[in-house]
């Protein structure tokens, strides 16, 4: 059952060496306040899972700039100068995952699947260390589920039961990551009473949400 907490209370849940999923596409749909709070705690050795490392001052990119990530599981690092520098210097480990595979691995983690078979990456260097299976004459790679200790989610609207609504392109990985972590913390632009969101219009059901902070 979701609980509305302060940013300070949320920040107390951040610990060294956690795996953190962070939503957002170039930072759009990322919970910036929660990320600022995470930067402020100074916790270290994090593994970050996100579409990309965004930009130095946006989304998960802030955690690279603050040197809190020891590892990034992402599809792209190119626009974050901090990631590029740390990657070259060997200060951050990067696991490159095709964007669609990343989305499915996160969804699998949240939905109790061990993994999925995707044609993406067959015959490329990403195949290294992975099982290739042929089904009806087509080749697929077995890609394994991803889970996290904490998911940091950005919603437009949340009710007090944790039901979430997103706006436009800010949805991206939010609904997938919300289900895939032990603790899911949502930053909502607006927090409304339970019953104020039409149950047909809910994009992430409250069952996936643990904590809500006012954005």
């Amino acid at each position: 059952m979701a609980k509305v907490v302060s940013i300070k209370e949320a920040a107390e849940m951040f610990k060294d060496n956690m795996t953190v999923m962070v939503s957002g596409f170039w930072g759009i749909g990322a919970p910036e306040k929660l990320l600022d709070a995470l930067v402020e705690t100074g916790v270290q050795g994090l593994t970050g899972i996100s579409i990309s490392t965004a930009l130095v001052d946006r989304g998960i990119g802030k955690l690279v700039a603050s040197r809190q990530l020891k590892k990034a599981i992402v599809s792209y690092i190119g626009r974050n100068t901090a990631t590029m520098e740390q990657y070259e210097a060997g200060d951050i480990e990067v696991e490159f995952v095709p964007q669609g595979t990343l989305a499915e691995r996160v969804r699998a983690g949240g939905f109790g699947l061990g993994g999925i078979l995707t044609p993406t990456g067959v015959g490329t260097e990403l195949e290294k260390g992975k099982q290739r299976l042929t089904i009806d004459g087509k080749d697929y790679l077995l890609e394994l589920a991803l889970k996290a200790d904490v998911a940091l989610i950005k919603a437009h609207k949340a009710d007090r039961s944790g039901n979430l609504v997103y706006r436009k392109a800010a949805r991206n990985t939010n609904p997938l990551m919300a289900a895939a972590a032990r603790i899911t913390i949502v930053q909502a632009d607006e927090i409304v009473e339970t019953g104020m969101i039409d149950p047909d219009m809910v994009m992430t059901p409250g069952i996936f949400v643990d904590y809500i902070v006012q954005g």
Partner: protein
Amino acid sequence: MDKKEFIARRVAQEFKDGDFVNLGIGIPTLVGNYIPEGIKVYLHSENGFTHIGPMLENENEIDPELINASDQHVSILPGGAFFDSGVSFGIIRGGHLAATVLGALQVDQEGNLANWKIPGKKTVGIGGGMDLVSGAKRVIIAMEHTSKGASKILKKCDIPLTGLNCVDLIVTEMAVIEVTESGLLLKEIAEDVTLEDVLATTEADLIISPDLKKISV
């Protein structure tokens, strides 16, 4: 008190405030009627929503597009949400339910469960049962202790399984039994039965808890 009500009342004590739970057909469905005061439990409907509300009897209250998984016209409580079958079983498989309560044909001391197929009888299907036992955080079996005098709690199930090592707790009108690493732990027995009664009607080996209690409902 009726046997079934007794079992349902005891199972209902297993929940914590805020738990999301899926209740199977039969005795498990009754559990929803006996949630202790001060505890809020949210019911998941595998056809695609949470927060199942009361059944509707009044023709003009009924929404033809709102049924539960047993095809009954129910309502949805505030805080509930609708979703598709992929999300619904993602909730189940992904460990987002604190518990599922199911009936059983047989349970055994390894925690195996059989409740979908009787050899020689017509197979009706699996439904969502195999998903529930593979995914819910706790699998609670609510059933009568015996069937036509025969034990349903066995050393080893001898009919097709629904799930392997999946049962966490067995609640019957006679006993509450926990499935542990070392075997079946008898934790509670009903007021009106003796330990000997329970042992005599249970084919499986039972470890008797050092603080064996009476079931209180």
